[in-house]
C-alpha cells in the first residue's frame, strides 16, 4: 500500500485517507495553484501505528475509564496528557519507520518543513477543527519530522479536540488522522483571505501580517485588514493596526520579534497585491464551488497558497463559543508570564492586605448598624475576590500544564506526571500550616502533662512558648474551628485545634514531606540538559513559572480563606447578638444582612448514603485516576459535613467530594486520599504527593459508595479503590 502520497499522487478517492487539508492542497496543485512541495502521511499510517503498537486500545481504555460526561475538564486534560505521552514514547515500528524515512528523507532531507494536521473529519463544511489539532512550523531533520508527526497524531486526542468531538457527536473510536508535511516557505508577508465575509456576503476579507502566519492565526499579532467588494473587486476599507511584532522562524519553530521600524510604517501588501491575493482566492472558490478561507504567503514576489478550506458559517453561535472557551484555557507562555506578574505583584499582596485590614476591625466593638454595614462590605469584598479567583487564578493554573507538556516533549518520561516532582517542595501555605501543626504536636508528644491537660480541655496554664506558638498559628491560619464546625454556623474556639493536635501527638510524626532535594536536583539537571544552550534560559523561565503556578494552585485558596474568615467572624458576631438579644430593635438590620450573605451553608458534600435494606448493591472496586503512587489500607473517613473532620483518626483514608486547602490539615494523619473530583493537579493530589500518600481522584460517587468505617485499599498506582476484604 502507498502509505505516503505526494500532492500530485492524491486521487479523488483518497479524501478519507488524506483528510480535508491534504485533499484540498492536492486539488489546488492539480488546478495549477502555486503550493509548497507537499506530501501527505495518510491515515493508514496512523492506523497501522496505533494498531501495531497497541496504542489504539490503550487510548480507548483511557477514554473509557469512566463515562466521558462525568469527566471534568481537568480530567480530560489528564487523559489527553497521558495519551500524548503514549505517542511520544512509542517509537515507529521498523517497517513503518523505514518507509517514512525513505519518503520523507528523499524529499525533505535538508529542508525545513511544516507538519500539519489533516483529520478526515476536519475542514468539511459541517465541522471546523480549526485550532483544535496541532500544526508545527519550521521542523528540520527526518527524526524531528517523525516526532512531530506523532505529536500531530496525539493532538487528535487533545482535551479541546476531545471535548469538541464529544460536543458535535463524533465517535472517538472512528477518529483518525492524516498529516500534511509541507516544505517551509519563509514568507516575508502572510495572511488569510475569506472570499466571503460571514457578516456580509457581498464582501471578502483579507488579513495580512509581516513574517509568518502563526501570529495572525493565534491572535498574537494584529493584522492589517482589507474589506473588498466582491462585485467590483474594489477595496471598501483598509484598517491598519499598530504594527509592532512579527513571527519569524526560530531555533525550533517560530518566535515573535519586534518588527523592524521601516516595515512598521507600511502595510504588508500594496493595492496590487491585495487584488492579486483576492483574485487567487476567488479562483479557489470557483474551483471548490464554495466560499473559501485561504492561508497564503508571499515568498518574494511569488504568492504561495498554504491551505484552503470551506468557510464554516453554518454552525451555531453556541458551539463556536464553547470551542473558543476550550481553546482559551490554553494560555501562551507570554500570556502566563504577564498573568504571573499581575498575580504575584498585585493580587496576592492586595489579598493579604485586605485580610489584614479587615482583621484590624474587631466586629465585637461595632454598633449593630456598623456591624451590618461591615458584614455587607466584607461580603462584597469576598465576592470580588472570588471573581478574581475565577478570572485570573484558575487560568494561571495552566502554567503547570504548559510546563508538563514542555517537560514531556523534551524528556518523554515513562510517567507523564514525573514533572510534578520538580514542582513540589515549594513553600505552599498549606504545607507551612501543617508543618506548624506537626511542630506543636511534637511538643505535646514529648510532654505528657501538657497532653493530659489539653485532653481535659484545660489550656489555662500553658507554658509561654507553647502559648505563643498557638497564638501565632491562630493568627496565621485561624483556629480551624470554622473548617471543623462548618461555614457560617461555626463556633469559634480552640477545641478542634487541640483535638487535632492530640490525635497527631498520639502517633509518630509522619515520614512524608521529607527532603527529596537530591531527586529534584537530578530531575532539574535532566530537564535543563535536554535543551540546547540558547534555549536554556527559556527552559529555566518555564520552570519558574510552573513552580509559581503550582504553588498558587494551593495558596490562592488559603488567601481567599483568610478573607472569607473575616466575613465569617463578622457574621458570627451578628448571630451571637441576635441570640443574646432577640427582641432588640436593631436586630432586624442584622437579620436582613445575614439573609443577604447566605452562602457556604452546605457541608462539603451532603448526599445521603443509600439505605441498606434487603437486597444490597455495593461497590467492590472503584476506578479513578491514579494521582499519587503507593498502596495503603485503612478505614475510610468520609467527609460529608465539616464536623467529620473533627473525628478524623490517624491511619484513616480521607474520602471526600473535593479536597480544599482549608481542610487538608488532616492529611498528615491520613493513610491515603480518595476524592470524587478528578484531576492530577487538584489540591487533593498535590497535597497527597507532598506527603507521599497514595491518592486517587475522580471516583464518581466516592462519598456515597464508600462509608465511614469501611475497610478500603487504595491502589494509587492503578487508581483502584477496593472495598472490603477478599471474602464474598
Amino acid at each position: 500500500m502507498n502509505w505516503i502520497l505526494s500532492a500530485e499522487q492524491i486521487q479523488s478517492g483518497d479524501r478519507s485517507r488524506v483528510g480535508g487539508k491534504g485533499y484540498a492542497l492536492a486539488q489546488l496543485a492539480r488546478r495549477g495553484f502555486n503550493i509548497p512541495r507537499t506530501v501527505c502521511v495518510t491515515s493508514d499510517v496512523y492506523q497501522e501505528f496505533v494498531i501495531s503498537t497497541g496504542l489504539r486500545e490503550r487510548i480507548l481504555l483511557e477514554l473509557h475509564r469512566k463515562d466521558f460526561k462525568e469527566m471534568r475538564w481537568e480530567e480530560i486534560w489528564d487523559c489527553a496528557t497521558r495519551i500524548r505521552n503514549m505517542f511520544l514514547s512509542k517509537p515507529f515500528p521498523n517497517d513503518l519507520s523505514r518507509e517514512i524515512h525513505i519518503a520523507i528523507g528523499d524529499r525533505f532531507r535538508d529542508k525545513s518543513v511544516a507538519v500539519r494536521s489533516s483529520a478526515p473529519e476536519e475542514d468539511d463544511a459541517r465541522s471546523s477543527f480549526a485550532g483544535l489539532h496541532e500544526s508545527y512550523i519550521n521542523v528540520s531533520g527526518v527524526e524531528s519530522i517523525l516526532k512531530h508527526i506523532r505529536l500531530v497524531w496525539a493532538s487528535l486526542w487533545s482535551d479541546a479536540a476531545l471535548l469538541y468531538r464529544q460536543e458535535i457527536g463524533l465517535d472517538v473510536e472512528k477518529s483518525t488522522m492524516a498529516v500534511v508535511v509541507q516544505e517551509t516557505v519563509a514568507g516575508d508577508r502572510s495572511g488569510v483571505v475569506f472570499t466571503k465575509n460571514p457578516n456580509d456576503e457581498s464582501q471578502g476579507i483579507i488579513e495580512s501580517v509581516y513574517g509568518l502566519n502563526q501570529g495572525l492565526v493565534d491572535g498574537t499579532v494584529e493584522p492589517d485588514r482589507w474589506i473588498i467588494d466582491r462585485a467590483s473587486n474594489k477595496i471598501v476599507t483598509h484598517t491598519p493596526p499598530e504594527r509592532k511584532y512579527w513571527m519569524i522562524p526560530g531555533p525550533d519553530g517560530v518566535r515573535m520579534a519586534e518588527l523592524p521600524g521601516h516595515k512598521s510604517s507600511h502595510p504588508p501588501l500594496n493595492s496590487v497585491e491585495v487584488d492579486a491575493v483576492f483574485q487567487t482566492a476567488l479562483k479557489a472558490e470557483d474551483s471548490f464551488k464554495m466560499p473559501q478561507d485561504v492561508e497564503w504567503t508571499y515568498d518574494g514576489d511569488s504568492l504561495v497558497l498554504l491551505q484552503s478550506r470551506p468557510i464554516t458559517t453554518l454552525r451555531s453561535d453556541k458551539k463556536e463559543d464553547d470551542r473558543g472557551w476550550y481553546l482559551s484555557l490554553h494560555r501562551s507562555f507570554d500570556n502566563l508570564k504577564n498573568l504571573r506578574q499581575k498575580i504575584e505583584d498585585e493580587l496576592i499582596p492586595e489579598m493579604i492586605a485586605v485580610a489584614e485590614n479587615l482583621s484590624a476591625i474587631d466586629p465585637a466593638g461595632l454598633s449593630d448598624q456598623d456591624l451590618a454595614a461591615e458584614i455587607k462590605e466584607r461580603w462584597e469584598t469576598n465576592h470580588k475576590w472570588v471573581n478574581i479567583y475565577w478570572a485570573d487564578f484558575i487560568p494561571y493554573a495552566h502554567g503547570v500544564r504548559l510546563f508538563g507538556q514542555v517537560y514531556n516533549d523534551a524528556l518523554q518520561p515513562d510517567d507523564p506526571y514525573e514533572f510534578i516532582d520538580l514542582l513540589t517542595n515549594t513553600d505552599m501555605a498549606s504545607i507551612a500550616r501543617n508543618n506548624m501543626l506537626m511542630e506543636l504536636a511534637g511538643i505535646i508528644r514529648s510532654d505528657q502533662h501538657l497532653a493530659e491537660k489539653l485532653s481535659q480541655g484545660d489550656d489555662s496554664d500553658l507554658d509561654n512558648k507553647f502559648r505563643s506558638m498557638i497564638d501565632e498559628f491562630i493568627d496565621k491560619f485561624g483556629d480551624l474551628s470554622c473548617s471543623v464546625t462548618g461555614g457560617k454556623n461555626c463556633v469559634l474556639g480552640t477545641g478542634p485545634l487541640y483535638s487535632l493536635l492530640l490525635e497527631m501527638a498520639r502517633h509518630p510524626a509522619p515520614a512524608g514531606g521529607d527532603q527529596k532535594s537530591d531527586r529534584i536536583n537530578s530531575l532539574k539537571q535532566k530537564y535543563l540538559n535536554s535543551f540546547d544552550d540558547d534555549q536554556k534560559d527559556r527552559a529555566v523561565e518555564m520552570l519558574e513559572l510552573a513552580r509559581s503556578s503550582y504553588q498558587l494552585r494551593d495558596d490562592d485558596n488559603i488567601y481567599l480563606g483568610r478573607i472569607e474568615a473575616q466575613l465569617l467572624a463578622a457574621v458570627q458576631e451578628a448571630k451571637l447578638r441576635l441570640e443574646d438579644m432577640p427582641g432588640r430593635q436593631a436586630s432586624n438590620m442584622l437579620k436582613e444582612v445575614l439573609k443577604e450573605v447566605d452562602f457556604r451553608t452546605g457541608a462539603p458534600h451532603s448526599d445521603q448514603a443509600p439505605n441498606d435494606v434487603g437486597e444490597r448493591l455495593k461497590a467492590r472496586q472503584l476506578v479513578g485516576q491514579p494521582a499519587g503512587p503507593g498502596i495503603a489500607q485503612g478505614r475510610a473517613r468520609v467527609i460529608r459535613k465539616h464536623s467529620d473532620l473533627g473525628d478524623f483518626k490517624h491511619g484513616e483514608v480521607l474520602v471526600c467530594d473535593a479536597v480544599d486547602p482549608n481542610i487538608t490539615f488532616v492529611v498528615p494523619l491520613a493513610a491515603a486520599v480518595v476524592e470524587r473530583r478528578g484531576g492530577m493537579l487538584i489540591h487533593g493530589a498535590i497535597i497527597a504527593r507532598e506527603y507521599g500518600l497514595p491518592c486517587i481522584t475522580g471516583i464518581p460517587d466516592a462519598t456515597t459508595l464508600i462509608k465511614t468505617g469501611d475497610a478500603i485499599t487504595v491502589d494509587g498506582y492503578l487508581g483502584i479503590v477496593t472495598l472490603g476484604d477478599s471474602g464474598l
Partner: protein
Amino acid sequence: MVSKDQFRQRLKELFNTQKLAALSTHHSGQPYASLVAFHASDDLKHIYFVTPTTTRKFANLSADNRVAVLVNSSTNQAADFHRAISVTAVGKAEVVDGSGSETIMIQYLAKHPHLEEFVRSPSCALVQVAVDSYYMVKNFQNVMELHLEI
C-alpha cells in the same frame, strides 16, 4: 451512580445476548472450570444449565453445591478491554426435576433450541443455581456487587 434497577437491567441485557457461561466447581479444593449453555430466570434469582450426569462438573457440584458462573460479552478482541462486561454469579447448585422442571425446560429451549435432543436425554440433568450475589466488572476494573435478598 448506578441504581439497582440499572444493575438488573444490565444483567438482563447481558444474559439475553450471551448463550454460554463458564461454570466453576471444585474437587477436593482443586478448582475446575467448564463451559455451559445457560438461561437466567426473569427475576435473576436463578441460573440454569443442563449437563450430563457423568461429567466432572456434575460430580463436583454434587459433592459441594457452592459454584460460580461467569458470563461475559467479550468477542476476543482488544476492544473487549473497554467494551466488554463480565458478570460472576455466586450461589448454590441443585438438580431440578419433577413438576417445575418442564416450564424451565421450555424457557431454556427457547434460548437454545438446537439443544433439544441433548437436554431431553435421560443421562442429562437440569441444574439450577440459586444466586446469592452478582459481581459485575465493566470499564476494565470497575466492580459492583448485587447481593440478593435470600
